[in-house]
């Protein structure tokens, strides 16, 4: 069986009819106990299991997924990877993620198609340009590559943008992060799953967490649809459904769940080789390797667990797209969907031990979880292995709400979630 992916193994398999490929991950029967359990087989959960095995040597780990791996927000986002945040705590976290993404294909022996093609946030007034200058200064002080763009600079990287003087949102300039980009989102989940499975991690799909095994005030495992599974340490990385699991464990979280929609157009020839977002419309767009325009925007402002989204927000997003790129008005939409995102009041994640000892949280990524997968996984793995915070995750502990030490990126970097 061929397990390692390379040009040579592809050639060899190509000559023998591709009959020798091993399945990318095993489909095991769950054991009755593990050293650690991770609930949620999305990017964050699979990455946590991988780093737990790779970095900390804890390989008797189970990842429980109620559907199929990568079928939640990991498969529903717009694949943008950036680290243009304001506060040093955030930059430490997202910067780590960005660095890990750069070498992830080699690390996992799985092509995640990371394409650092640059991202421009377009500004439409002198007031926005002043805020942009402040953001760029903060990013540069934090060591993030950022440039303040003039209108001509924006024209250089996105010539088909609407530069008409009659535009509803005229272009004054923008913020440019050259190392931002996109990656193949499914490949991130599959790559982590394959690498983790190869290290001995059991990935158990169609296994829903129905409750927690609580003994002497401590979490000692998970009641699942496939029976009880015991472990001394349990992590949860379930995004929009975090509140539901927290209720089973007997505590509340500072989270509201909303639908975040995205859509893709029919595929066209290469026309846009960067990621473009507009402060005026709130719409952002990039072009996938298949040629589809991947389009996203703001949240549906209605609490929801329905993974479909409502039409008024989709209309706003598309109207914004047409304002930014009038030529795209000729395209047909091909698919539309929504993911349920876990929105926290300060737009920063929650990482740390939960009020139930032995249960660890990785949630609250809101609309920006995909870009943080390698870092979120690293932090949750550290918590599960050591029972204590990594220095980078400590500021994101749940206790920050009672202490008033919020990391307000909505106000800081203008992240609208």
């Amino acid at each position, binding site marked *: 069986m061929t397990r390692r992916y390379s040009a040579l193994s592809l050639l060899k398999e190509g000559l023998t009819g591709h009959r020798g490929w091993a399945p990318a991950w095993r489909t095991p029967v769950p054991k009755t106990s593990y050293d650690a359990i991770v609930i949620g087989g999305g990017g964050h959960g699979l990455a946590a299991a991988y780093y737990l095995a790779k970095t900390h040597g804890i390989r008797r780990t189970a990842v429980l997924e109620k559907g199929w791996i990568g079928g939640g927000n990991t498969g529903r986002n717009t694949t943008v990877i950036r680290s243009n945040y304001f506060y040093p705590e955030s930059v430490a976290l997202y910067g780590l993620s960005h660095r890990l993404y750069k070498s992830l294909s080699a690390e996992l022996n799985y092509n995640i198609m990371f394409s650092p093609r640059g991202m421009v946030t377009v500004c439409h007034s002198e007031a926005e340009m002043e805020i942009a200058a402040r953001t760029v200064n903060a990013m540069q002080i934090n060591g993030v590559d950022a440039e303040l763009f003039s209108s001509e600079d924006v024209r250089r990287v996105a010539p088909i943008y609407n530069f008409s003087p009659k535009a509803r949102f005229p272009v004054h300039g923008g913020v440019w992060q050259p190392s931002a980009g996109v990656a193949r989102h499914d490949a991130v989940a599959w790559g982590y799953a394959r690498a983790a499975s190869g290290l001995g991690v059991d990935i158990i799909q169609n296994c829903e967490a129905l409750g927690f095994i609580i003994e002497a005030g401590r979490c000692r495992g998970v009641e699942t649809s496939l029976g009880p599974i015991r472990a001394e340490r349990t992590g949860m990385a379930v995004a929009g*459904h975090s*509140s539901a699991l927290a209720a089973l464990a007997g505590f509340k979280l500072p989270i509201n*769940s909303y639908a975040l929609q995205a859509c893709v157009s029919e595929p066209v020839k290469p026309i846009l080789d960067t990621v473009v977002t507009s402060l005026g419309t709130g719409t952002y767009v990039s072009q996938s390797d298949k040629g589809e325009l991947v389009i996203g925007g703001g949240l549906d402002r209605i*609490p929801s667990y329905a993974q479909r989204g409502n039409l008024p927000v989709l209309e706003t997003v598309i109207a914004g797209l047409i304002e930014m790129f009038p030529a795209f008005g000729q395209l047909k939409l091909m698919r539309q969907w929504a993911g349920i995102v876990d929105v926290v009041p300060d737009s920063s994640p929650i990482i740390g031990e939960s009020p139930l000892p032995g249960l660890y949280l990785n949630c609250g990524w809101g609309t920006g979880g995909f870009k943080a997968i390698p870092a979120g996984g690293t932090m949750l793995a550290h918590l599960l292995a050591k029972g204590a915070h990594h220095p980078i995750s400590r500021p994101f502990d749940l206790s920050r709400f009672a202490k008033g030490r919020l990391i307000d990126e909505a106000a800081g970097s203008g992240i609208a979630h």
Partner: protein
Amino acid sequence: MQLFPCPFCGPRDETEFHYGGEAGNVRPEGANVSADFWANYLWFRANPTGPSREIWMHMTCGEFFVMTRDASTHVVADSSPNSGREP
């Protein structure tokens, strides 16, 4: 486009409404409120997957009201004027 029932104006487009939070989240009174209790009031939510009672504002008439709505199906079970006891 979903229609929400305003208890004063009848069924109207969802875009006319603004979500105001979970009903029954009462502001703690007095000077001796612990940080945990205060944080619980300010930030922590039940955020249920099923039916819940929610405060909504119908922006066109400016009235607050209580709507019982299922977050998974978006089905509205009830819509009634704010009794004054709800925050």
